C-alpha cells in the first residue's frame, strides 16, 4: 500500500492505514500517505473528506482508532500534543487558536516557555518573538495583545508560533483562508524558505491555484479514503478537481450574463462604525450579481453587517426599491427584504445543536406563526423539505442535527433559511469559504438562478477567481472606502489589486 515514489529508503513520515470513526461518521478509513524530507505535500479534498481529522491525528490532538504512524521507518505513538512536538510535528489549525488575553510573545511560546525553576524568562520570549515576527513580515511589537489584532495578523502569529517550534514537519490546515493576497505571498515565501532548510510541509487548501504553485506532490482524499496521488509533473487544476469530486467538472464558474432591472438597493453617504471617516455610496439592481473585493480588513464584512442591521450606521441612507428604510436590527433588514449569509456559518449562521428543519425555519417562524405565537409546524416542514429538494442538501432527513452535515451542506442550510424568506436582496459574506469544489459549484449555480429570477445578489469574497468568475459587476474596497467599480470586461486581477491596495487605476477612471 505505502510505496513512496522517491528514492529515500525511509520517508520522514509514513501514515499507514489510519481509520477514525466519529459518532455517525466514518471520518477516515484506511488512509495512508508518506512525506519525504524537504517536501511540500498538499492534501486536498472536498469538505468533510477527512483532511483536518488526519492532521489532528498527526498532531496528537485526536487518537486514531487503528493504523500506524512511522517516522523515518520507526513506529511512533503520538498520544498527545506533547508527543507530536517531541517528534517534531507542529500543526497550524484550520481555526485560529490563540489566547486573546495574552500578548503575541506569550502566544508564540505558549506551552514551551523558556523558564528556569518554572519562572518564565520574559525577555527571551520578546527577543525571539521579534525575530519570528520579522520572518513572517508582521511589523508589530511582541508585547501587543493578540485580541487587538486583525484576523489576518492573528493568522500570521499562528504561523510565527509554528515556526518557533522548529518542527521537522509543519502542517498547515487552510492557512490562507483568512489572509490577504499580500499576506499570502509572505507565507509562501516562508514555506519556500523552510523547504530549502529541509523542513517538510503538509499543506491543506481549497485554493487549487496555491496548490499548483507550491506543492511537490498532492494527495487527494475523498469520503475519508485515499482517492489518488499526483506528482509534481501531473499536478493540474483539472486532475485535482477530477480526483476530488470523482468526475469531470466542466464549467466551473457558471456565469450567465443578466439583464439588470430596477435599482433595488441604494446606499448613500453611509458611514460604518469601523471606518467612521469614510462615506460609502453604491447601488444594485434586480437580476444582478455584484461582488465586493478587497483585502482582509477592508471593511466588507462591516458593510454587510451595517446593511443587515447587526451594527448601526453612523449616518447615511439606505433605500430598498426606491424607498428609504431605517435599519437598526436584523429584523428591520429582513422586513425591508434583505437577507445575510454571514461570514462564519458555525458562529453566526447555524445553531449547530438543532435539526436541519429548525435551522431552516429560524428566520421565517415569526412570519408563519399561528395565533398565540404558536409555531406553524406544517409550514415549517414544508419549507424544509422544499429547500432540501431544491438545493440538493445531502442529509438523511430534515431532523438531522446540523452539526453532522458537511460544510457545504451546512452552508446550503443557511442559504435555505433565507430563501424561505424570499428576499429582494441577498447578501453573502464569503459564501464559499471552506466549502469544497462540488458544493461551491452548486452554490454558484444557485446564485445565478436567483439572480435570473430577479433577486439582487451582493457578495463579498476574498477569492479573486470567484469574484471574477461569477460577478456581473465588481466593487472594490480599501480601508473602509469604495475605491472603485469594475464592469465585467474590466475584471483583470491587476485592476482589482490596484484598487484593493488603494491605488487609482492606471488605465482608466471609474
Amino acid at each position: 500500500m505505502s510505496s513512496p515514489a522517491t528514492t529515500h529508503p525511509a520517508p520522514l513520515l509514513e501514515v499507514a492505514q489510519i481509520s477514525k470513526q466519529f459518532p455517525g461518521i466514518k471520518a477516515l478509513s484506511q488512509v495512508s500517505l508518506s512525506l519525504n524530507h524537504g517536501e511540500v505535500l498538499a492534501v486536498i479534498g472536498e469538505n468533510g473528506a477527512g483532511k483536518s481529522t488526519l492532521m489532528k491525528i498527526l498532531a496528537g490532538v485526536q487518537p486514531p482508532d487503528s493504523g500506524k504512524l512511522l517516522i523515518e521507518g520507526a513506529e511512533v505513538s503520538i498520544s498527545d500534543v506533547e508527543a507530536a512536538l517531541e517528534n517534531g510535528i507542529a500543526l497550524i489549525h484550520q481555526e485560529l487558536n490563540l489566547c486573546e488575553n495574552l500578548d503575541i510573545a506569550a502566544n508564540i511560546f505558549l506551552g514551551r516557555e523558556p523558564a528556569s525553576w518554572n519562572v518564565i524568562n520574559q525577555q527571551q520570549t520578546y527577543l525571539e518573538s521579534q525575530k519570528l515576527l520579522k520572518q513572517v513580515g508582521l511589523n508589530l511589537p511582541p508585547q501587543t495583545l493578540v485580541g487587538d489584532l486583525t484576523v489576518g495578523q492573528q493568522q500570521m502569529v499562528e504561523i510565527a508560533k509554528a515556526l518557533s517550534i522548529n518542527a521537522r514537519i509543519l502542517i498547515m490546515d487552510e492557512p490562507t483562508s483568512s489572509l490577504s493576497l499580500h499576506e499570502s505571498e509572505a507565507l509562501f515565501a516562508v514555506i519556500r524558505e523552510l523547504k530549502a532548510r529541509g523542513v517538510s510541509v503538509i499543506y491543506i487548501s481549497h485554493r487549487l491555484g496555491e496548490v499548483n504553485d507550491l506543492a511537490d506532490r498532492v494527495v487527494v482524499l475523498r469520503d475519508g479514503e485515499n482517492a489518488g496521488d499526483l506528482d509534481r509533473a501531473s499536478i493540474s487544476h483539472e486532475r485535482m478537481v477530477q480526483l476530488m469530486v470523482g468526475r469531470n467538472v466542466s464549467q466551473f464558474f457558471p456565469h450567465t450574463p443578466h439583464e439588470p432591472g430596477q435599482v433595488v438597493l441604494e446606499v448613500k453617504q453611509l458611514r460604518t462604525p469601523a471606518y467612521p471617516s469614510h462615506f460609502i455610496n453604491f447601488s444594485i439592481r434586480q437580476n444582478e450579481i455584484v461582488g465586493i473585493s478587497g483585502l482582509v480588513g477592508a471593511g466588507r464584512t462591516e458593510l454587510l453587517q451595517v446593511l443587515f442591521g447587526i451594527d448601526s450606521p453612523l449616518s447615511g441612507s439606505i433605500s430598498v426599491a426606491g424607498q428609504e428604510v431605517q435599519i437598526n436590527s436584523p429584523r428591520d433588514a429582513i422586513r425591508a427584504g434583505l437577507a445575510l449569509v454571514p461570514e462564519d456559518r458555525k458562529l453566526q449562521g447555524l445553531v449547530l445543536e438543532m435539526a436541519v428543519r429548525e435551522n431552516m425555519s429560524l428566520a421565517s417562524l415569526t412570519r408563519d406563526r399561528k395565533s398565540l405565537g404558536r409555531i406553524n409546524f406544517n409550514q415549517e416542514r414544508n419549507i424544509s423539505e422544499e429547500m432540501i429538494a431544491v438545493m440538493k442538501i445531502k442529509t438523511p432527513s430534515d431532523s438531522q442535527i446540523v452539526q453532522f452535515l458537511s460544510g457545504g451542506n451546512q452552508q446550503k442550510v443557511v442559504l435555505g433559511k433565507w430563501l424561505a424568506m424570499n428576499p429582494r436582496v441577498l447578501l453573502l459574506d464569503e459564501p464559499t469559504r471552506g466549502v469544497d469544489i462540488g458544493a461551491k459549484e452548486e452554490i454558484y449555480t444557485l446564485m445565478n438562478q436567483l439572480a435570473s429570477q430577479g433577486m439582487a445578489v451582493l457578495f463579498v469574497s476574498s477569492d479573486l477567481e470567484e469574484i471574477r468568475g461569477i460577478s456581473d459587476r465588481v466593487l472594490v474596497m480599501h480601508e473602509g472606502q469604495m475605491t472603485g467599480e469594475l464592469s465585467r470586461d474590466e475584471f483583470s486581477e491587476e485592476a482589482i489589486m490596484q484598487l484593493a491596495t488603494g491605488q487609482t487605476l492606471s488605465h482608466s477612471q471609474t
Partner: protein
Amino acid sequence: MKKILGILILLIVVCGVTAISNENFVSAYNIQNVTRLTSLFGIISIGVAFVIISGGIDLSIGSVICLIGTMLPYLLAKGVPVPLAFLLVGVLSICIGLAHGLLITKLKLQPFIVTLCGLLIYRGVARGITEDQTQGFGTAHAGLRYLATGKIDLPFIEGFKLPVPFLIMLGLALLAAFLLNKTIFGRYLKAIGNNEAAARYSGIKTDKVVITAYVICSFLAGIGGILFGLDINSVQPEGIGNFYELYAIAAAVLGGCSIRGGEGTILGVVIGAALMRVLRNSITMLGIPSQLEFAIIGAVILVGVVSDELVKRYAQKRRAIQQARQTSG
C-alpha cells in the same frame, strides 16, 4: 426524553425503597405533603429552567421569594386591599426580572454577577422595610391561605386529597411546556441558549427573548414567595428562601437542563424537583439523622450527573462500535 428516563427511574427507586422500608411513606397524608412541597419548589424550578435554557443563571430566586413573601403580608397588614396587594407584588416581581434582563442584555453584564447582586439586595431591602420582623397573615385571610394549604377531594380515590398548590404548579407547568415546545418564543429561547449570535443573525430579537426568560423566572419566584408565605404563615425576612435558588437550579439540572443552555424540558424539571423533595422526605422516613440530609441530597445529585455522563459516553462508544461493525460487515 432519555435524560428524563434516568431521573424518573431514580425517583421511582427512591420511592420504592422508602415505601418498602416504611409504609407511612405511602400514606395519603405523607403523599399530600410531599406533593405540596414538590409543587412549591417545582414552580420556582420551572422559572429558573427558562433562564438556564436561555444560557443564563439566576441566583436571586431565594431573595425574590423573601421580598415578595414578606411584602404581601406587609402590604395586607398596612391595610392594602387584597387584589391591589397582589397586583403590587406581581408588578414588583416582574420589574425585578426586567431589571435583570436589561442589565444582562443591554449592558452585557454577566448573569451570575447581576443576580448575585440581586441576591444581596432584595433580601436586604425586605429586611430593611420590615425591620427584620416576621411577617404573617395571622388568622385573617384564611381564604387566601387556601391557595397554599387547601386540598381538593378527588372523585375516585378515597382518602387522598389533592393539594391546591399542585393544581397551580400543574397549570404553570402546562403553560410553560406549551411556551417552550409549541411557540416561537420557546424555539427562540433554545436557539439563543445554543448560539446567541446565530439567533441574532436570523432576525430574532434576542434581547427581548432573554429578558422575557428572566421576567418569567422572577415572576414564578414571586408566586413561589407568595405560596411559601401563605403556607407557613410566618415569613422571617432574614431566613426565608435562603439557598432556594440552589435547590431550584439543582432540580432543573437533575431534570435535564444543561447549564450551558439550549436544553431542557419542563417535565424533567418537575421530576427533578420531586426527586429533591422525596429525598428529604425519605431521609426522615428511613430514620437517617437530619444532619446528613444535605450530604445525601448532594451525593444523589452528583451520582445523577456522573452516571448521566457515563451513560452518554457508553452509548456513544457502543454506537461507534456498532457502526464500525456495519461498515466492515
